[in-house]
């Protein structure tokens, strides 16, 4: 067992535990912070798989932007900070757990029976190649994605904007 593999298993283990914490903790802030860890660990995993560009994008976009958004969301919706037993829907817990576990088994079965083998990681950087492909072969989807982002931007603004009537209501 090389050091490389040890690191990998360690990362995977941490990944699991933080992800578990995201969905089980009763503190909203903890959940968000755990998600940060999950994502950071995923980025590490990507680095181990020599996909450094994706890793960086993950860190920048997710941890940099999305999580901040989440925190804002938590604040604006006045979610009770600190421990909160109300956070989970207890009625659903058992069924949800069973279902999730079933899905886990199903997926594991499919994936394991479908794929096996070992990966040898070449250490060379793939970023330049990735950039070239992204802007040649995949340039059309790339443009479409940018449109999607634009649409999301406009849609987000339209949705979240306060209507005049509501502003008045708030003032009252």
């Amino acid at each position, binding site marked *: 067992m090389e050091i490389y593999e040890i690191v990998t298993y360690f990362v995977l283990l941490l990944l699991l535990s933080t992800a578990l914490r995201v969905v089980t903790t009763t503190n909203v802030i903890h959940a968000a912070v755990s998600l940060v860890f999950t994502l950071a660990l995923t980025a590490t995993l990507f680095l181990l798989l020599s996909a450094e560009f994706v890793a960086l994008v993950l860190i920048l976009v997710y941890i940099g932007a999305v999580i901040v958004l989440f925190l804002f969301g938590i604040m604006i919706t006045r979610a009770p900070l600190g421990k909160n037993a109300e956070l989970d*829907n207890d009625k*659903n817990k058992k*069924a*949800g757990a069973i*279902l999730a576990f*079933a*899905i886990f088994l*199903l997926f594991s*079965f*499919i994936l394991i029976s479908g794929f096996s083998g070992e990966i040898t990681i070449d250490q060379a950087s793939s970023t330049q190649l990735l950039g070239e492909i992204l802007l040649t072969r995949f340039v059309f989807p790339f443009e479409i994605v940018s449109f999607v982002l634009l649409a999301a931007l406009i849609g987000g603004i339209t949705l979240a904007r306060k209507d005049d009537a509501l502003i008045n209501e708030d003032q009252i």
Partner: protein
Amino acid sequence: MNLLAESKLSYGDGGVFAEYAWILVVLPFISALIITFFGKKLPYKGAEIALATIGSIFFYSSALLYKHITEGIVNEFFIVVGNIGTFDIEFGWVVDGLSIMMYFVVGTVALLVFIYATNYMKGEVRYTFFFTSLTLFAGSMLVLVSSPTLIQILIGWELVGVCSYLLIGHYWETKDNSSAAMKAFITNKIADIGLMIGIIILALNTGTLRISEILYQSTHDYEDIKNVAFVAGVLLFIGAMGKSAQFPLHVWLPDAMAGPTPVSALMHAATMVTAGVYLLARMFPFYEAMAHEALDIVMLFGVITLITAGLIAVVQDDLKKVLAYSTVSQLGYMVAAIGSGAYTASLFHLWTHAFFKALLFLGAGSVIHAVHTNSMLEMGGLRKYMPRTFITFIIGTVALAGLPPFAGFFSKDEILASLNHEGETTFLVISIIGAFVTAFYMTRAVALTFLGEYRGHGHPHESDKMMTVPLMFLAVFAIGAGWVNIPGVYTGFTTWVTTRANKINEYHPESFDYTALFSGLIAGLLGIGLGYFVYQLQGSADKGDKLIKVEPIWTVLENKYYLDHFYFKYLINPTKLTIANAVDRINTNFLDRIINSFGLAASFLGQIVYNNFDQKGIDKFLNASSTSTDSFGGKVKLLQTGKTQQYLMLFLAGVVTISLLILFII
């Protein structure tokens, strides 16, 4: 195709310009749609889209005209839209001298009229719809003049008719206006019978609907078409009589003045009413080669129209009606010219007339806008209040009266010259009298409207720039449009319009025909002089009228030869009331009575059936069968909790189950 190949040797094919000329036709329809759906929300209520459209058409047609002058374009394009039996139904567009001339006339006059109308119609009801219809009209007119097949001609022909219906009846709140619109449509529809049957005959005897092919066959002496040429020619002319308001089917045009003035200027003076002339010109090689006798009939009706309509114009007190009858009369000139075999002269008159008559109508509109009445008896002295309108109106009048160097002089002279050349002395004399009458009634109109003292109410004032500027542009055309075809000096126009796939064999004067020229000129001057003497020097309209009032001619003219009276008394009312009611009575009292006596027995039987299958009976059965469904549904509905997570859970459970089934069982 052979004939196109022939012509391509000598002319250019117009390249991309010709290939994309369909834009001219399609664009107005698209913008009409846009105006309909979004017009009301736009800052200028849709007028801006109409203007942009017509502006682009103007520029495109100018470019085409320029290209045509420099290299001469003859080309046509076809799209097959259906096959029926052995016929191909085709639409398309033709780009040659004749159609390009028409594109340009439509584009120019329409652009100026549109600009004028943005102001003229301001504050009127249905402003947006007005521009929709006007744009639609421009498109329909272009469909008509761009047509390479007879079927497309028919389509454009009726579409302009509908636009005319919509626009004449623009103020449909009043019954008179909607009746006028209806009259225009129905009169045209009657004439269309001729056109339709004419097209059918031509199509069946040539086996094609393409105009160029039909013309090719007629100039190459095909037997089938020769046998029916006279009938077909006359039938087509009947169609043209309706649209181009030839006696005795002209009755709709004066009534059509119920529409807003820009409409009268664009449709009922410059473009739509010339469709008949255009059709005759388009089919001219056919007439020339095979239906010479039909041409004589054409000439006869043209001459009758030009004099009868001119005479009615003398007694009209409504400014727009004077112009309307004048239009009918001038159309008579064009038709007579075609009839005498003077293709170019006729189109030349169409060309100049489009500009100066549009000018006169818009001028009249400007006056009417200022004094709020159509009656010339309540006008007078407007020269002082509306100087710009006055000057442009005078230019139009002089051009119409045919004084040099204004446009009407050259075109009218050419028509007279060709009549002279054909040796039709009687017709020539009538036409010269017509020129005299024209000059007389126009002078009368000017005198009653602009000279003397103001007889109306309120304070008239000059119209807005948006209205006077188009007048000035048209005035420039009314002066200069005739200079493109001066015998012996520059005859570019002849080259334009004779540049087409089929050769035109016509007489074309090399120099002025001085007999015709001077007699026409003298007639015009006499008319102006007399008009000035009668209406200006006598001081008032009543006195002037009294001076020339010759009973019973005057009464006959005032009643428009009793034509309308005749139509209503002997054609329309009998059909609408007597015959129709008789038919209806036959239906209910005779046919139905037979049926009912049979039905009496059946009715008895039916009562029983009906009672047994009455609504209650049916429903009872239906309900009994459905109570079980009711209880089932009541249980199922409990699943609908509205809670997303439950839905999702059920969904996922389903997914898992189905996946398991697929994986392990199937």
